[in-house]
Protein backbone atom coordinates (compact mmCIF):
# COMPACT_ATOMS: atom_id res chain seq x y z
CA UNK A 1 0.00 0.00 0.00
CA UNK A 2 2.91 2.29 0.65
CA UNK A 3 4.08 2.65 -2.88
CA UNK A 4 3.53 5.16 -5.55
CA UNK A 5 1.90 4.18 -8.72
CA UNK A 6 0.49 6.09 -11.59
CA UNK A 7 -2.83 4.51 -12.38
CA UNK A 8 -4.12 5.12 -15.84
CA UNK A 9 -7.64 3.88 -16.08
CA UNK A 10 -9.30 3.87 -19.39
CA UNK A 11 -6.53 2.58 -21.50
CA UNK A 12 -8.75 0.51 -23.71
CA UNK A 13 -7.02 -1.29 -26.45
CA UNK A 14 -10.13 -2.06 -28.42
CA UNK A 15 -10.99 1.60 -28.35
CA UNK A 16 -7.63 2.62 -29.70
CA UNK A 17 -7.68 0.03 -32.45
CA UNK A 18 -4.55 -1.70 -31.21
CA UNK A 19 -6.43 -4.83 -30.29
CA UNK A 20 -9.46 -6.60 -31.64
CA UNK A 21 -12.41 -7.29 -29.45
CA UNK A 22 -12.89 -10.57 -27.69
CA UNK A 23 -16.56 -10.74 -28.63
CA UNK A 24 -16.28 -13.40 -31.37
CA UNK A 25 -15.05 -15.82 -28.73
CA UNK A 26 -16.88 -14.68 -25.64
CA UNK A 27 -20.12 -13.32 -27.05
CA UNK A 28 -21.51 -10.10 -25.63
CA UNK A 29 -19.83 -8.05 -22.93
CA UNK A 30 -21.91 -9.57 -20.20
CA UNK A 31 -21.31 -13.14 -21.26
CA UNK A 32 -17.62 -12.27 -21.42
CA UNK A 33 -17.76 -11.05 -17.83
CA UNK A 34 -19.66 -14.13 -16.72
CA UNK A 35 -17.19 -16.42 -18.47
CA UNK A 36 -14.34 -14.60 -16.74
CA UNK A 37 -16.01 -15.11 -13.39
CA UNK A 38 -16.46 -18.80 -14.17
CA UNK A 39 -12.85 -19.00 -15.20
CA UNK A 40 -11.59 -17.47 -11.99
CA UNK A 41 -13.91 -19.57 -9.90
CA UNK A 42 -12.72 -22.80 -11.56
CA UNK A 43 -9.09 -21.76 -11.37
CA UNK A 44 -9.23 -20.95 -7.69
CA UNK A 45 -11.01 -24.16 -6.84
CA UNK A 46 -7.89 -26.10 -7.82
CA UNK A 47 -6.26 -27.59 -4.79
CA UNK A 48 -3.10 -26.24 -3.36
CA UNK A 49 -0.58 -28.74 -4.70
CA UNK A 50 -1.95 -29.18 -8.20
CA UNK A 51 0.50 -27.15 -10.23
CA UNK A 52 -0.31 -28.73 -13.61
CA UNK A 53 -3.99 -27.96 -13.09
CA UNK A 54 -3.23 -24.31 -12.45
CA UNK A 55 -0.85 -24.06 -15.39
CA UNK A 56 -3.41 -25.57 -17.73
CA UNK A 57 -5.78 -22.72 -16.89
CA UNK A 58 -3.19 -20.33 -18.25
CA UNK A 59 -4.64 -21.45 -21.57
CA UNK A 60 -7.55 -19.04 -21.17
CA UNK A 61 -5.61 -15.76 -20.90
CA UNK A 62 -3.12 -17.01 -23.44
CA UNK A 63 -5.92 -17.79 -25.86
CA UNK A 64 -7.47 -14.36 -25.36
CA UNK A 65 -4.16 -12.56 -25.66
CA UNK A 66 -3.28 -14.23 -28.92
CA UNK A 67 -6.78 -14.18 -30.38
CA UNK A 68 -7.56 -10.57 -29.53
CA UNK A 69 -3.99 -9.48 -30.25
CA UNK A 70 -3.50 -7.94 -26.85
CA UNK A 71 0.02 -6.65 -26.36
CA UNK A 72 1.45 -9.17 -23.90
CA UNK A 73 4.01 -6.64 -22.73
CA UNK A 74 1.36 -4.36 -21.32
CA UNK A 75 -0.31 -7.13 -19.35
CA UNK A 76 3.02 -8.53 -18.19
CA UNK A 77 4.05 -5.12 -16.92
CA UNK A 78 1.00 -5.00 -14.69
CA UNK A 79 1.46 -8.58 -13.55
CA UNK A 80 5.01 -7.87 -12.47
CA UNK A 81 3.59 -5.65 -9.76
CA UNK A 82 2.58 -8.79 -7.89
CA UNK A 83 1.33 -7.86 -4.48
CA UNK A 84 4.08 -8.26 -1.85
CA UNK A 85 1.43 -9.75 0.38
CA UNK A 86 0.99 -12.69 -1.99
CA UNK A 87 4.73 -13.18 -2.18
CA UNK A 88 5.04 -13.21 1.59
CA UNK A 89 2.34 -15.84 1.90
CA UNK A 90 3.92 -17.91 -0.86
CA UNK A 91 7.33 -17.80 0.75
CA UNK A 92 5.70 -18.56 4.08
CA UNK A 93 4.55 -21.82 2.59
CA UNK A 94 8.02 -22.39 1.23
CA UNK A 95 9.52 -22.05 4.67
CA UNK A 96 6.90 -23.82 6.71
CA UNK A 97 6.02 -26.85 4.63
CA UNK A 98 9.26 -28.73 4.16
CA UNK A 99 7.82 -32.17 3.61
CA UNK A 100 9.77 -33.35 0.65
CA UNK A 101 7.38 -34.73 -1.85
CA UNK A 102 9.35 -35.34 -4.96
CA UNK A 103 12.84 -35.80 -6.22
CA UNK A 104 13.83 -34.52 -9.63
CA UNK A 105 17.36 -35.17 -10.84
CA UNK A 106 18.59 -35.20 -7.32
CA UNK A 107 16.81 -32.04 -6.23
CA UNK A 108 14.24 -32.51 -3.53
CA UNK A 109 11.08 -30.48 -3.90
CA UNK A 110 9.16 -29.68 -0.78
CA UNK A 111 5.41 -29.35 -0.49
CA UNK A 112 5.92 -25.66 0.27
CA UNK A 113 7.79 -25.10 -2.95
CA UNK A 114 4.87 -26.49 -4.86
CA UNK A 115 2.10 -24.82 -2.93
CA UNK A 116 4.02 -21.52 -2.99
CA UNK A 117 4.42 -21.77 -6.74
CA UNK A 118 0.73 -22.59 -7.05
CA UNK A 119 -0.15 -19.40 -5.18
CA UNK A 120 2.00 -17.26 -7.43
CA UNK A 121 0.80 -19.04 -10.57
CA UNK A 122 -2.83 -18.64 -9.56
CA UNK A 123 -2.29 -14.94 -8.97
CA UNK A 124 -0.67 -14.41 -12.33
CA UNK A 125 -3.14 -16.48 -14.30
CA UNK A 126 -6.28 -15.13 -12.69
CA UNK A 127 -5.14 -11.54 -13.07
CA UNK A 128 -4.03 -12.10 -16.65
CA UNK A 129 -7.48 -13.50 -17.42
CA UNK A 130 -9.23 -10.55 -15.84
CA UNK A 131 -7.00 -7.95 -17.48
CA UNK A 132 -7.36 -9.58 -20.90
CA UNK A 133 -11.09 -9.05 -20.64
CA UNK A 134 -11.15 -5.57 -19.16
CA UNK A 135 -8.63 -4.34 -21.71
CA UNK A 136 -10.90 -5.48 -24.54
CA UNK A 137 -14.14 -3.91 -23.35
CA UNK A 138 -14.52 -0.13 -23.16
CA UNK A 139 -15.59 0.99 -19.74
CA UNK A 140 -19.00 2.33 -20.67
CA UNK A 141 -19.87 -1.12 -21.97
CA UNK A 142 -18.76 -2.74 -18.75
CA UNK A 143 -21.19 -0.42 -16.97
CA UNK A 144 -23.92 -1.38 -19.40
CA UNK A 145 -23.23 -5.04 -18.67
CA UNK A 146 -23.38 -4.39 -14.93
CA UNK A 147 -26.84 -2.91 -15.42
CA UNK A 148 -27.84 -6.14 -17.09
CA UNK A 149 -26.72 -7.99 -13.96
CA UNK A 150 -29.08 -5.80 -11.92
CA UNK A 151 -26.28 -4.03 -10.10
CA UNK A 152 -27.97 -1.13 -8.26
CA UNK A 153 -28.24 1.94 -10.43
CA UNK A 154 -26.58 4.02 -7.68
CA UNK A 155 -23.40 2.00 -8.06
CA UNK A 156 -23.41 2.07 -11.87
CA UNK A 157 -23.82 5.85 -11.88
CA UNK A 158 -21.07 6.08 -9.30
CA UNK A 159 -18.71 3.98 -11.42
CA UNK A 160 -19.34 6.09 -14.51
CA UNK A 161 -18.69 9.36 -12.70
CA UNK A 162 -15.65 7.98 -10.93
CA UNK A 163 -14.19 6.74 -14.16
CA UNK A 164 -14.84 10.01 -15.92
CA UNK A 165 -13.42 12.28 -13.27
CA UNK A 166 -10.44 10.24 -12.23
CA UNK A 167 -8.73 11.39 -15.41
CA UNK A 168 -9.52 15.03 -14.72
CA UNK A 169 -8.54 15.03 -11.07
CA UNK A 170 -5.38 13.02 -11.61
CA UNK A 171 -4.20 15.62 -14.03
CA UNK A 172 -4.94 18.32 -11.49
CA UNK A 173 -3.20 16.38 -8.74
CA UNK A 174 -0.15 15.88 -10.91
CA UNK A 175 0.00 19.56 -11.75
CA UNK A 176 -0.28 20.54 -8.10
CA UNK A 177 2.43 18.15 -7.11
CA UNK A 178 4.56 19.51 -9.91
CA UNK A 179 3.99 23.08 -8.72
CA UNK A 180 4.98 22.08 -5.22
CA UNK A 181 8.13 20.28 -6.37
CA UNK A 182 9.24 23.30 -8.34
CA UNK A 183 9.25 25.40 -5.23
CA UNK A 184 10.76 22.82 -2.89
CA UNK A 185 14.44 22.24 -2.51
CA UNK A 186 15.78 18.93 -1.31
CA UNK A 187 13.28 17.67 1.20
CA UNK A 188 12.28 21.18 2.31
CA UNK A 189 8.73 21.78 1.22
CA UNK A 190 7.81 18.14 0.83
CA UNK A 191 6.92 17.76 4.50
CA UNK A 192 3.88 16.08 5.79
CA UNK A 193 1.97 19.25 6.65
CA UNK A 194 2.56 20.78 3.24
CA UNK A 195 1.41 17.64 1.49
CA UNK A 196 -1.70 17.53 3.62
CA UNK A 197 -2.66 21.04 2.54
CA UNK A 198 -2.01 20.01 -1.04
CA UNK A 199 -4.48 17.17 -0.62
CA UNK A 200 -6.84 19.50 1.23
CA UNK A 201 -6.80 21.98 -1.66
CA UNK A 202 -7.46 19.18 -4.07
CA UNK A 203 -10.39 18.15 -1.92
CA UNK A 204 -11.82 21.67 -1.97
CA UNK A 205 -11.52 21.80 -5.73
CA UNK A 206 -13.17 18.43 -5.94
CA UNK A 207 -16.15 19.57 -3.91
CA UNK A 208 -16.51 22.75 -5.95
CA UNK A 209 -16.38 20.71 -9.12
CA UNK A 210 -19.16 18.47 -7.78
CA UNK A 211 -21.26 21.57 -7.27
CA UNK A 212 -20.75 22.73 -10.86
CA UNK A 213 -21.35 19.23 -12.09
CA UNK A 214 -24.65 19.09 -10.30
CA UNK A 215 -25.67 22.27 -12.05
CA UNK A 216 -24.90 20.94 -15.51
CA UNK A 217 -26.58 17.66 -14.77
CA UNK A 218 -29.82 19.15 -13.52
CA UNK A 219 -29.81 21.55 -16.43
CA UNK A 220 -30.03 18.53 -18.65
CA UNK A 221 -32.89 16.95 -16.79
CA UNK A 222 -30.95 14.84 -14.27
CA UNK A 223 -33.28 13.34 -11.69
CA UNK A 224 -31.05 10.96 -9.86
CA UNK A 225 -30.37 8.48 -12.62
CA UNK A 226 -27.71 8.49 -15.24
CA UNK A 227 -28.86 5.50 -17.21
CA UNK A 228 -32.39 5.17 -18.45
CA UNK A 229 -31.78 2.45 -20.99
CA UNK A 230 -33.88 -0.63 -20.54
CA UNK A 231 -31.74 -3.73 -20.44
CA UNK A 232 -32.56 -6.92 -22.25
CA UNK A 233 -32.46 -10.32 -20.61
CA UNK A 234 -29.51 -12.56 -21.38
CA UNK A 235 -30.25 -14.24 -24.69
CA UNK A 236 -30.09 -17.88 -25.68
CA UNK A 237 -26.97 -17.28 -27.77
CA UNK A 238 -25.21 -15.78 -24.78
CA UNK A 239 -26.23 -18.70 -22.62
CA UNK A 240 -24.80 -21.09 -25.19
CA UNK A 241 -21.42 -19.40 -25.06
CA UNK A 242 -21.42 -19.37 -21.29
CA UNK A 243 -22.28 -23.05 -21.11
CA UNK A 244 -19.65 -23.88 -23.71
CA UNK A 245 -16.92 -22.17 -21.74
CA UNK A 246 -18.18 -23.69 -18.50
CA UNK A 247 -17.77 -27.11 -20.12
CA UNK A 248 -14.26 -26.27 -21.24
CA UNK A 249 -13.29 -25.21 -17.74
CA UNK A 250 -14.90 -28.32 -16.30
CA UNK A 251 -12.95 -30.55 -18.67
CA UNK A 252 -9.72 -28.78 -17.78
CA UNK A 253 -10.47 -29.30 -14.11
CA UNK A 254 -11.17 -32.97 -14.72
CA UNK A 255 -8.09 -33.72 -16.76
CA UNK A 256 -5.58 -32.10 -14.48
Amino acid sequence: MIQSRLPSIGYHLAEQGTATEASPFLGSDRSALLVTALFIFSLLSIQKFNLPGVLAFGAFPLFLMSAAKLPAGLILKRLLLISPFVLVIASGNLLLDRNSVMLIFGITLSGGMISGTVIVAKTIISLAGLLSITLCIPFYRICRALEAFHVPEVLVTQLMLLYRYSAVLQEEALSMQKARDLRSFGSRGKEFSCTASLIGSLLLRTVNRAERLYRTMTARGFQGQMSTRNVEEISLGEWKIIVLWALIFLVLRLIF
Partner: protein
Amino acid sequence: MISIEGISFSWPDGTRAIDRITLAIAQGSSMGIVGANGAGKSTLVNHLNGYFLPQEGSISIGGTVVSKKNLDRIHRVVGLLFQNPDDQLFTARLYDDVAFGPENLGMDRAMMATLIEEWLRELNLWELRNKPPAHLSQGEKRFAAFASILVMQPEVIVMDEPTADLDPKNRRKLINLVNGLGITKITVSHDLDFVWDTCQRVCIMNRGRIVADGLTRDILGNRELLEANSLELPLRLQR
Protein backbone atom coordinates in the same frame (compact mmCIF):
# COMPACT_ATOMS: atom_id res chain seq x y z
CA MET B 1 -38.36 37.02 -24.75
CA ILE B 2 -36.43 36.95 -21.49
CA SER B 3 -37.35 39.44 -18.84
CA ILE B 4 -35.37 39.94 -15.68
CA GLU B 5 -37.03 42.21 -13.17
CA GLY B 6 -35.16 43.69 -10.24
CA ILE B 7 -33.33 40.56 -9.15
CA SER B 8 -30.69 40.52 -6.42
CA PHE B 9 -28.50 37.81 -4.98
CA SER B 10 -26.23 37.66 -1.94
CA TRP B 11 -23.88 34.82 -1.02
CA PRO B 12 -24.17 33.31 2.44
CA ASP B 13 -21.04 35.25 3.47
CA GLY B 14 -22.79 38.52 2.63
CA THR B 15 -21.14 39.27 -0.74
CA ARG B 16 -23.80 40.96 -2.84
CA ALA B 17 -23.06 39.42 -6.23
CA ILE B 18 -26.12 40.82 -8.04
CA ASP B 19 -27.81 44.03 -7.15
CA ARG B 20 -31.28 44.87 -8.51
CA ILE B 21 -30.77 43.94 -12.13
CA THR B 22 -33.47 44.57 -14.70
CA LEU B 23 -33.00 43.47 -18.27
CA ALA B 24 -35.12 42.40 -21.23
CA ILE B 25 -33.76 40.32 -24.09
CA ALA B 26 -35.76 39.93 -27.29
CA GLN B 27 -36.41 36.52 -28.73
CA GLY B 28 -33.84 35.45 -31.34
CA SER B 29 -31.45 38.26 -30.44
CA SER B 30 -27.87 37.92 -29.31
CA MET B 31 -26.73 39.61 -26.12
CA GLY B 32 -23.24 40.01 -24.66
CA ILE B 33 -22.52 40.49 -20.97
CA VAL B 34 -19.10 41.88 -20.13
CA GLY B 35 -17.39 43.22 -17.03
CA ALA B 36 -14.47 42.83 -14.66
CA ASN B 37 -13.48 39.64 -12.85
CA GLY B 38 -15.92 39.22 -9.99
CA ALA B 39 -18.53 41.62 -11.38
CA GLY B 40 -21.28 39.01 -11.00
CA LYS B 41 -21.69 37.84 -14.58
CA SER B 42 -21.61 34.13 -13.83
CA THR B 43 -23.95 34.58 -10.91
CA LEU B 44 -26.39 36.40 -13.16
CA VAL B 45 -26.44 33.82 -15.93
CA ASN B 46 -26.82 31.03 -13.39
CA HIS B 47 -30.17 32.58 -12.59
CA LEU B 48 -31.32 32.15 -16.15
CA ASN B 49 -31.53 28.38 -16.03
CA GLY B 50 -32.88 28.31 -12.52
CA TYR B 51 -29.72 27.15 -10.78
CA PHE B 52 -30.09 30.12 -8.48
CA LEU B 53 -33.57 31.30 -7.79
CA PRO B 54 -33.86 35.08 -7.40
CA GLN B 55 -33.79 36.19 -3.78
CA GLU B 56 -35.63 39.34 -4.85
CA GLY B 57 -37.41 40.21 -8.08
CA SER B 58 -38.38 37.72 -10.76
CA ILE B 59 -37.33 36.27 -14.08
CA SER B 60 -39.50 34.95 -16.83
CA ILE B 61 -38.43 33.20 -19.98
CA GLY B 62 -40.81 33.07 -22.89
CA GLY B 63 -43.66 33.70 -20.46
CA THR B 64 -42.61 30.98 -17.96
CA VAL B 65 -41.62 32.34 -14.57
CA VAL B 66 -38.37 30.81 -13.27
CA SER B 67 -39.46 29.10 -10.08
CA LYS B 68 -39.00 25.79 -8.39
CA LYS B 69 -42.07 24.22 -9.91
CA ASN B 70 -41.23 25.33 -13.45
CA LEU B 71 -37.65 24.09 -13.38
CA ASP B 72 -38.24 21.21 -15.76
CA ARG B 73 -39.70 23.50 -18.35
CA ILE B 74 -36.90 26.06 -17.85
CA HIS B 75 -34.21 23.41 -18.31
CA ARG B 76 -35.86 22.42 -21.54
CA VAL B 77 -35.86 25.96 -22.86
CA VAL B 78 -32.49 27.24 -21.66
CA GLY B 79 -29.15 25.59 -22.45
CA LEU B 80 -26.10 26.69 -20.46
CA LEU B 81 -22.55 26.20 -21.74
CA PHE B 82 -20.07 26.19 -18.87
CA GLN B 83 -16.70 27.79 -18.87
CA ASN B 84 -14.94 24.49 -18.28
CA PRO B 85 -16.13 21.73 -20.61
CA ASP B 86 -14.83 19.15 -18.14
CA ASP B 87 -17.67 20.16 -15.86
CA GLN B 88 -20.16 19.38 -18.55
CA LEU B 89 -19.07 16.01 -19.89
CA PHE B 90 -19.69 13.45 -17.24
CA THR B 91 -20.35 10.11 -18.86
CA ALA B 92 -17.80 7.56 -19.97
CA ARG B 93 -18.48 8.05 -23.67
CA LEU B 94 -18.96 11.14 -25.80
CA TYR B 95 -22.12 9.81 -27.44
CA ASP B 96 -23.79 9.04 -24.11
CA ASP B 97 -23.06 12.52 -22.98
CA VAL B 98 -24.75 14.09 -25.95
CA ALA B 99 -27.66 11.68 -25.54
CA PHE B 100 -28.06 12.38 -21.82
CA GLY B 101 -30.24 15.47 -22.10
CA PRO B 102 -32.62 14.26 -24.81
CA GLU B 103 -33.03 10.96 -23.00
CA ASN B 104 -34.02 12.67 -19.78
CA LEU B 105 -36.35 14.88 -21.74
CA GLY B 106 -38.03 11.75 -23.02
CA MET B 107 -37.41 12.68 -26.64
CA ASP B 108 -38.56 10.27 -29.31
CA ARG B 109 -35.80 7.67 -29.88
CA ALA B 110 -35.60 7.88 -33.64
CA MET B 111 -35.68 11.63 -33.68
CA MET B 112 -33.06 11.74 -30.96
CA ALA B 113 -30.69 9.52 -32.91
CA THR B 114 -31.05 11.66 -36.04
CA LEU B 115 -30.55 14.87 -34.15
CA ILE B 116 -27.48 13.62 -32.32
CA GLU B 117 -25.87 12.33 -35.47
CA GLU B 118 -26.61 15.57 -37.23
CA TRP B 119 -24.95 17.72 -34.58
CA LEU B 120 -22.01 15.41 -34.06
CA ARG B 121 -21.31 15.47 -37.78
CA GLU B 122 -21.75 19.22 -37.94
CA LEU B 123 -19.14 19.65 -35.19
CA ASN B 124 -16.73 17.03 -36.61
CA LEU B 125 -17.28 14.80 -33.60
CA TRP B 126 -18.98 11.86 -35.25
CA GLU B 127 -15.79 9.83 -35.59
CA LEU B 128 -15.01 10.41 -31.94
CA ARG B 129 -18.39 9.37 -30.59
CA ASN B 130 -17.16 6.29 -28.75
CA LYS B 131 -14.20 7.97 -27.11
CA PRO B 132 -14.23 8.79 -23.43
CA PRO B 133 -14.31 12.57 -22.97
CA ALA B 134 -11.01 12.36 -21.09
CA HIS B 135 -9.30 11.43 -24.33
CA LEU B 136 -10.51 14.47 -26.26
CA SER B 137 -8.51 17.62 -26.86
CA GLN B 138 -9.64 20.85 -25.24
CA GLY B 139 -11.23 22.14 -28.43
CA GLU B 140 -13.01 18.86 -29.02
CA LYS B 141 -14.28 18.88 -25.45
CA ARG B 142 -15.70 22.35 -25.86
CA PHE B 143 -17.51 21.38 -29.04
CA ALA B 144 -18.78 18.23 -27.36
CA ALA B 145 -20.23 20.28 -24.53
CA PHE B 146 -21.77 22.54 -27.13
CA ALA B 147 -23.34 19.57 -28.93
CA SER B 148 -24.75 18.22 -25.67
CA ILE B 149 -26.61 21.50 -25.24
CA LEU B 150 -27.74 21.93 -28.82
CA VAL B 151 -29.34 18.50 -29.17
CA MET B 152 -31.77 19.55 -26.49
CA GLN B 153 -32.99 22.14 -28.99
CA PRO B 154 -33.04 24.97 -26.49
CA GLU B 155 -34.77 28.20 -27.36
CA VAL B 156 -32.12 30.13 -25.45
CA ILE B 157 -28.43 29.36 -25.17
CA VAL B 158 -26.23 30.89 -22.49
CA MET B 159 -22.43 30.67 -22.85
CA ASP B 160 -19.95 31.46 -20.07
CA GLU B 161 -16.47 32.25 -21.46
CA PRO B 162 -16.81 30.06 -24.54
CA THR B 163 -13.41 30.93 -26.08
CA ALA B 164 -11.03 30.28 -23.18
CA ASP B 165 -8.14 27.95 -24.15
CA LEU B 166 -9.18 27.62 -27.77
CA ASP B 167 -6.56 28.16 -30.44
CA PRO B 168 -7.40 30.90 -32.98
CA LYS B 169 -8.69 28.45 -35.57
CA ASN B 170 -11.07 26.74 -33.16
CA ARG B 171 -12.15 30.14 -31.87
CA ARG B 172 -13.04 31.20 -35.41
CA LYS B 173 -15.01 28.01 -35.91
CA LEU B 174 -16.98 28.77 -32.75
CA ILE B 175 -17.77 32.27 -33.97
CA ASN B 176 -19.20 30.91 -37.21
CA LEU B 177 -21.14 28.29 -35.39
CA VAL B 178 -22.71 30.72 -32.95
CA ASN B 179 -23.61 33.13 -35.72
CA GLY B 180 -25.32 30.31 -37.57
CA LEU B 181 -27.74 29.60 -34.71
CA GLY B 182 -31.11 31.31 -35.01
CA ILE B 183 -32.00 31.10 -31.31
CA THR B 184 -31.67 33.60 -28.48
CA LYS B 185 -28.03 33.79 -27.38
CA ILE B 186 -26.46 35.23 -24.26
CA THR B 187 -22.67 35.34 -24.07
CA VAL B 188 -20.49 36.17 -21.07
CA SER B 189 -16.91 36.78 -22.13
CA HIS B 190 -13.71 38.68 -21.56
CA ASP B 191 -12.93 38.19 -25.24
CA LEU B 192 -14.50 41.43 -26.44
CA ASP B 193 -13.60 40.67 -30.03
CA PHE B 194 -15.68 37.54 -29.80
CA VAL B 195 -18.54 39.56 -28.37
CA TRP B 196 -18.09 42.11 -31.16
CA ASP B 197 -18.34 39.33 -33.75
CA THR B 198 -21.32 37.52 -32.29
CA CYS B 199 -23.56 39.93 -30.36
CA GLN B 200 -25.94 42.65 -31.48
CA ARG B 201 -26.32 44.08 -28.03
CA VAL B 202 -24.02 44.31 -25.03
CA CYS B 203 -24.41 45.21 -21.41
CA ILE B 204 -21.65 45.98 -18.94
CA MET B 205 -21.77 44.74 -15.36
CA ASN B 206 -19.92 46.31 -12.49
CA ARG B 207 -20.18 45.18 -8.87
CA GLY B 208 -23.40 43.37 -9.42
CA ARG B 209 -25.15 46.10 -11.39
CA ILE B 210 -25.73 46.80 -15.02
CA VAL B 211 -24.05 50.09 -15.76
CA ALA B 212 -24.45 50.28 -19.52
CA ASP B 213 -26.60 48.60 -22.13
CA GLY B 214 -26.84 49.23 -25.85
CA LEU B 215 -25.84 48.26 -29.36
CA THR B 216 -22.52 46.44 -29.52
CA ARG B 217 -20.82 49.08 -31.61
CA ASP B 218 -21.92 51.84 -29.28
CA ILE B 219 -20.86 50.13 -26.10
CA LEU B 220 -17.70 48.38 -27.23
CA GLY B 221 -16.67 51.43 -29.22
CA ASN B 222 -16.86 53.75 -26.22
CA ARG B 223 -13.37 53.86 -24.76
CA GLU B 224 -14.18 55.92 -21.64
CA LEU B 225 -17.13 53.78 -20.70
CA LEU B 226 -15.09 50.62 -21.13
CA GLU B 227 -12.15 51.89 -19.16
CA ALA B 228 -14.35 52.94 -16.29
CA ASN B 229 -15.38 49.29 -16.01
CA SER B 230 -12.04 47.49 -16.16
CA LEU B 231 -12.50 46.89 -19.87
CA GLU B 232 -10.78 47.99 -23.05
CA LEU B 233 -11.66 48.48 -26.69
CA PRO B 234 -11.83 45.19 -28.57
CA LEU B 235 -8.30 44.53 -29.75
CA ARG B 236 -9.11 44.92 -33.39
CA LEU B 237 -10.22 48.49 -32.70
CA GLN B 238 -7.04 49.28 -30.86
CA ARG B 239 -4.14 49.43 -33.32
